């Protein structure tokens, strides 16, 4: 084979850098990178911010890690970080302040715990029914994904909501 695929990339190990690097004051979270996951880097950053928001690590007014610090600790292209932050700005989750950095602006709607429990229970019921009908795991996922997309399209919501939608397979399942 003409191209050497590199030594350390098997299983997404070597390139990944677990939580490390300098922590500036006012940056409550650290990014990490899963190089082998196939998810574009900027999306990983976006997801990590959204995840942190959901879990409460980030609150409105907190500063996101400085571009320079992310670059220095993860060794990724600065434009990737800028792209992720722009994405978050477009979603309304963050806003940049010139000369200061990027700050969390809003929060993802958090659903209360009892509601979450109820939803989970009804979901388990649906899963049992699907299993009875003969759907395997991937079939369930495909059906759910398709229905989810239809739901949002009917609603007229942007495809950007729930970031996992971009980069997904399209076409008929």
């Amino acid at each position: 084979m003409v191209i050497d695929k590199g030594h350390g990339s098997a299983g997404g190990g070597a390139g990944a850098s677990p939580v490390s690097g300098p922590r500036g004051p006012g940056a409550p979270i650290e990014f990490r990178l899963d190089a082998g996951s196939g998810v574009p880097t900027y999306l990983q950053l976006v997801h990590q911010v959204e995840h942190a928001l959901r879990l409460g690590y980030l609150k409105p007014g907190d500063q996101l890690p400085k571009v320079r610090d992310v670059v220095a600790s993860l060794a990724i292209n600065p434009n990737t970080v800028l792209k992720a932050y722009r994405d978050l700005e477009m979603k309304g989750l963050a806003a940049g302040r010139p000369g200061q950095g990027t700050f969390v602006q809003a929060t993802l709607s958090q659903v209360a715990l009892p509601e979450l429990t109820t939803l989970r229970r009804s979901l388990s019921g649906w899963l049992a029914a699907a299993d009875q009908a003969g759907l395997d795991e991937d079939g369930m996922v495909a059906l759910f994904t398709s229905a989810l997309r239809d739901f949002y399209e009917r609603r007229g919501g942007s495809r950007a909501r729930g970031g996992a939608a971009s980069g997904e397979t399209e076409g008929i399942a």
Partner: protein
Amino acid sequence: MSINVIETNGLGKRYGGTWALRECSLAIPAGHVAALVGPNGAGKTTLLNLAVGLASPSAGGVTVLGGRAPGSPAALDGIAFVAQDAPLYKNLSVADMIHLTRNLSRRFDQEYAETRLGELGIPLKRKSGRLSGGQQAQLALTLALARRPRLLMLDEPVAMLDPVARHDFMAIVLTAAVDDGVSVVLSSHVLTELERVADYLILLSRGRVQMAGEVDDLLASHRVLTGPALEADRYAERPVVHVRRAEAQAHLLVRATAADPVPPGFQAHPVGLEELALAYLREPGAAALPGPARGRHAEPSEVAK
């Protein structure tokens, strides 16, 4: 304000009877981290040597930093070049290497060099030949960046480094890109880690440019269509770069965007950089060159199957 850090026009270089580089026309804009990728012998080092004046063209021309002649003092003033295996004077101590570089450069940030080497734990008194491979690479990089260049050119900078050294090296390169607006052109024959480092890609194979452009644009303009093998054989809506075919199923790598319709029976997937590059490398006749930026549209050649 945006200039082209490297601009070539039909550039070619011949050694004896062999063309190491042919018909190379590129315009690498400033403000990017550009990866020059290709198998060994593809012409990456030749291209870098031409850009830095260590070789002179057999055909065509090349200018750097917005029209300066390569190898001229004006060009080299703004370029820092770290050749393959980070050449240093092995008998000189680290401090002597700093002294030498400072003497021969128009600009040199002594404080930056000493601070950075201190952070890296590289002793100033040690002979540079006695440093480890990673330390030598870091020394070469420190000296390069201390010259405050506008363009940093690296020839296979991390080929000999272990993963930690690689990471640290690239972290410094990328930080320089952020902090000082240094444009970077680096060559490598390893694809996997370039995806998160580069935002501009040049793919070279057998002396010719197969792909050149911003990574985002390249990825956005290609899709993989997976569908029945028989239908795949008849597909002609968009240019096909590469086909991988089995009895019942085939994958077509096509030049299409997310907006292009997916033929019935097919699924469309986005492409990763490694898959894209490998596909082009397997199809010597295929090329995807940037269009509007160079004032012309370059349609890739069809793949004859």
